[in-house]
């Protein structure tokens, strides 16, 4: 441990020393000498992102929130890799520290990688690929995706096998994973994804397929199944099945002098009905989002080319007879101003309708400003 700390400390000190000297750009000799010092065969990098929010809800006091997510990447050789992210945040009046993911990866061949640990849910396209604040085009996440709660796990604790294969001009992607799976909440019939101690021996499994007929377009389907009831209770056979579809299209359109970006994802969650009070209802929920963004990145004007316009519609629909059975529908419009390829200001206004049993609707709206920086 002490040795590793010493080596890391030396490497970081060396990097700082070299970074603080101004180096001639084209001196490849010097560059290769420096790389000799920097590399060895093990390589280490800290990256991540930071954000600060300003939120003004309709009838409540305005709030600031902030977060910092360091990501640690460690490459031992061409096959062995480690990735971990820690989330540090002050949000909803609380300070939280979470292990977002920590995974050891081993490359089996050109088309297959094995990973074990806590990893972002491969079935959850938004969480796995789009949620970091410098990538997400709005300051909020769709309600169903469940970064910490929702209808689809944000992370899994277990292992996965994954990869991609080009087939002529197209590509297929595939992931198989096995994990602790969620647990059933006996009060409201919903499932809790934060499962750090499994209540049964039956592990959750999942599959994800992606298909990219052309590089700009990706469509995906994912399936998850897990027994969620506790072993040796009346609920031991209750299982939850999830189907997810996702869609992504991003293209530079010359006629529009900019980039169009379309994203969508829908999830259907079905939990068995054990018919034991209070869980005596058909337990089917669904949720999803569709988002369109346009950035006129190819216009001549320096100000306009950094602007981006975004619209997202998202919803969650809980079972009709469940204790908590509201339908939530939300529209969000946003304008972003890009400061660099991975930092931006976001200004968004959202309008949410909550339809409760009996059909009455309440409406909430709020303004959110954010600055985000990915490094």
């Amino acid at each position, binding site marked *: 441990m002490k040795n590793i700390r010493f080596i890391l400390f030396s490497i970081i000190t060396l990097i700082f020393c070299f970074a603080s000297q101004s180096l001639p750009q084209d001196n490849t000799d010097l560059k290769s000498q420096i790389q000799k010092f920097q590399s060895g065969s093990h390589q280490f990098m800290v990256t991540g992102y930071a954000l600060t929010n300003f939120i003004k809800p309709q009838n409540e006091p305005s709030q600031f929130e902030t977060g910092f997510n360091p990501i640690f990447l460690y490459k031992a050789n061409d096959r062995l890799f480690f990735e971990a992210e820690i989330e540090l945040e002050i949000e909803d009046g609380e300070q939280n520290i979470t292990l977002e993911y920590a995974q050891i990866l081993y490359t089996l061949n050109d088309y297959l990688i094995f990973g074990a640990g806590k990893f972002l849910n491969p079935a959850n396209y938004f969480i796995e690929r789009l949620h970091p604040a410098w*990538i997400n085009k709005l300051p909020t996440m769709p309600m169903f995706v469940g970064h910490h709660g929702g209808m689809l796990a944000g992370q899994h604790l277990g292992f996965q096998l994954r990869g*991609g294969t080009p087939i*002529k001009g*197209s590509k297929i992607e595939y992931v198989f994973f096995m994990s602790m799976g969620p647990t059933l909440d006996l009060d409201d019939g919903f499932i809790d994804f934060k499962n750090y101690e499994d209540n049964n021996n039956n592990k959750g499994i999942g599959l994800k397929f992606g298909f990219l007929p052309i*590089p700009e377009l990706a469509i995906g389907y994912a399936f998850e199944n897990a027994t969620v009831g506790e072993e040796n209770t009346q609920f031991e056979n209750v299982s939850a099945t999830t189907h997810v579809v996702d869609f992504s299209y991003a293209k530079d359109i010359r006629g529009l002098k900019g980039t169009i970006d379309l994203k969508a994802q829908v999830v259907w969650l079905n939990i068995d009905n054990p018919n034991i009070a209070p869980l005596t209802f058909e337990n089917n929920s669904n949720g999803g989002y569709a988002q369109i963004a346009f950035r006129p990145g190819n216009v001549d004007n320096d100000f306009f080319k950094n602007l981006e316009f975004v619209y997202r519609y998202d919803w969650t629909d809980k079972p009709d007879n469940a204790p908590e059975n509201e339908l939530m529908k939300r529209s969000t419009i946003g304008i972003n101003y890009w400061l660099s390829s991975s930092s931006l200001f976001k200004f968004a206004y959202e309008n949410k309708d909550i339809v409760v049993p009996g059909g009455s609707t309440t409406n909430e709206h709020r303004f959110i400003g954010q600055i985000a920086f990915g490094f």
Partner: protein
Amino acid sequence: MKFIKKYMVNLILGLGFFAVLTIVGCASTTDIVDRSGAQLWGENCARCHNIRPPQSLTDAQWEIAGMHMRTRANLSGIVTRKIIEFLKTAN
């Protein structure tokens, strides 16, 4: 039963859709494995986020970030190696 039937119909519709897209995919130009590192970089690295400029990282950092992205984006080994080589020459 009704439930299963609904999913069978969805599955068949889905597979049909995939079949059409496969034909579209196979009809498109050069095979992915024959494309240059620069082209593959342009095609694969702007789907989820803005393209990160080659100059933003050192050679050693691109090797690490490249391996990170290989898993995230399910890239095959050969595509990843070509992209990393390109980034190392362009930074």
